[in-house]
């Protein structure tokens, strides 16, 4: 009951944010929501299925480029975002077939390699991706369903609500998945692959499902970016971008539902604050993350949990 009330208050506060916050705060809030979606997907793979991926930025970029290409050709926000997610899902399904045959470091290295292949494609396939210039002039197209409604997305506030709605939907779906029989099956695979096989579970099938869903979450986060920034560039697919959900999740708590969300808020705010004071912000951020991860082995959310377990 207390948790539900806290969630309700949080949603109301987020819904009222445009009323009391300026444009920059909205911009930051959107980025935090995007990182939260990105990290949740990553944590389905890592915290719930036991697969550490270093290539999620590849799917983020696929979602971003997919959405951008659609919006440049057909300016409809909903089509762009959904299209970006579908393309990222298809790519992650395809690469998942190759990656999920391996585990541990082999899996991590494969995902890192595929992520960097996507980065190279974004860099070199100039005709499609715009090369190192990326794609520019992406419109923040109106949200419309022909014949039903059409909402102008030019004001930042309107787009913030779209991102918030997608984030709430993504978080809700994630909650349902991890508390469902499928979520329990993924946790079983994380805990013991051999035990899972020996109770009749097709481990590869669920790994592939987890990989694809995580790819779609990364794709959704990516697809929500171009309408905000009006541009997409190859660094979105770089491995250093893949590290962001890893760090955010470790910071918040790997084995908890809310960990990646809390971690995303902390990570982004820390980054945003430190960058104002020093050009060596990455080093400072790294030190803080290391201290926090070592100080709170179960992540920051473990402070609120009696045993540091599931929250």
């Amino acid at each position, binding site marked *: 009951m207390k948790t539900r009330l806290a969630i309700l208050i949080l949603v109301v506060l987020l819904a009222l944010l445009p009323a009391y916050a300026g444009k920059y705060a909205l911009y930051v809030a959107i980025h935090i929501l995007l990182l939260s979606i990105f990290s949740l997907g990553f944590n389905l793979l890592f915290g719930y299925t036991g697969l550490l991926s270093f290539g999620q930025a590849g799917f983020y970029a696929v979602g971003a480029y997919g959405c951008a290409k659609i919006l440049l050709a057909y300016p409809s926000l909903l089509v762009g975002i959904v299209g970006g997610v579908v393309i990222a899902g298809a790519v992650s399904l395809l690469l998942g077939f190759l990656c999920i045959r391996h585990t541990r470091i082999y899996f991590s290295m494969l995902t890192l390699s595929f992520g960097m292949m996507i980065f190279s494609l974004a860099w070199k396939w100039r005709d499609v991706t715009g090369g190192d210039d990326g794609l520019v002039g992406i419109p923040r197209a109106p949200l419309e369903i022909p014949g039903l409604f059409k909402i102008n997305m030019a004001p930042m506030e309107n787009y913030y609500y779209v991102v918030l709605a997608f984030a709430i939907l993504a978080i809700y779906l994630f909650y349902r998945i991890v508390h469902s029989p499928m979520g329990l099956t993924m946790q079983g695979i994380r805990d*013991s692959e051999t035990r899972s096989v020996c109770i009749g579970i097709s481990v590869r099938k669920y790994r592939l499902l987890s990989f694809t869903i995580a790819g779609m979450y990364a794709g959704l986060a990516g697809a929500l970016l171009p309408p905000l920034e009006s541009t997409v560039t190859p660094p979105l697919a770089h491995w250093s971008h893949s590290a962001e959900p890893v760090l955010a999740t470790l910071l918040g708590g790997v084995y908890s539902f809310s960990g990646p969300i809390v971690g995303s808020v902390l990570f982004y705010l820390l980054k945003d604050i430190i960058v104002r004071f020093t050009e060596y912000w990455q080093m400072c951020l790294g030190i803080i993350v290391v201290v926090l991860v070592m100080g709170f082995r179960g992540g920051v959310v473990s402070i609120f949990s009696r045993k540091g377990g599931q929250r």
Partner: protein
Amino acid sequence: MKAIIRTESLGKYFGQMAAVHEVTLTLQEGLFTSVIGPNGAGKTTLINILSGYMLPDRGKIYFREKEITRLGPDKRVKMGISRSFQVMNIFPRMTVFQNILLPVLSRLNKTSSAFSSLQSQKEAVEEAEKILGEVWLQEEKDSPGGELSHGDQRLLELGIAVASNPQLCFLDEPSSGMTPIERIKVLELVKKLASERKTTFIIVEHDMDIVFSLSDWIVVMNRGEVLAEGKPGDIRENQEVRDIYLGEEI
């Protein structure tokens, strides 16, 4: 009595070493069977092969006269073959209840359900509760599996193995690491589950007192081969078995 599992010239080789060699066995449904033998005799390898965890290099395996030689363990579980492991193999981060619920959901083909809650799986939940009671872990249901005592973890592993509702269940040293009293209790529990659930259990066990008092049939292995098989009385009298494994005290 019908054969539940049958092998023909089964072999598994690691380089020059024959872990299992020319094993031809017919094990009967309903008989509590123990596989015994000195360390390195090939008992665990045999269980690994029969449960599908390891594929044989040669020979054939039939479950209820259907060939299963190349089937993986997940497929064999669906046919009614389950197992426990020599080294503890549970889901340590999941609660005791979830440890039992998962194999029940798997058996009922409900693991693909992505948006329904676990509580809404009434049939599976009720069955998992029942199994928890059968293996004496009702009071520990909300504890993480990995936080149980060694003995309770062994019970949990037994619970996971029977939660698939198997017709045939292999238990690889189910009482290892337990005190003598705990051993007797656990193996009597196995015997009780065998009669109540109509499951045929095949166990690997080192405690000869327990083996001879509980088993209906004993298979003795040595150096990857079947040295002898028969009723406990016959095995006890077998001079070759006494020389190689039992000694003169049994």
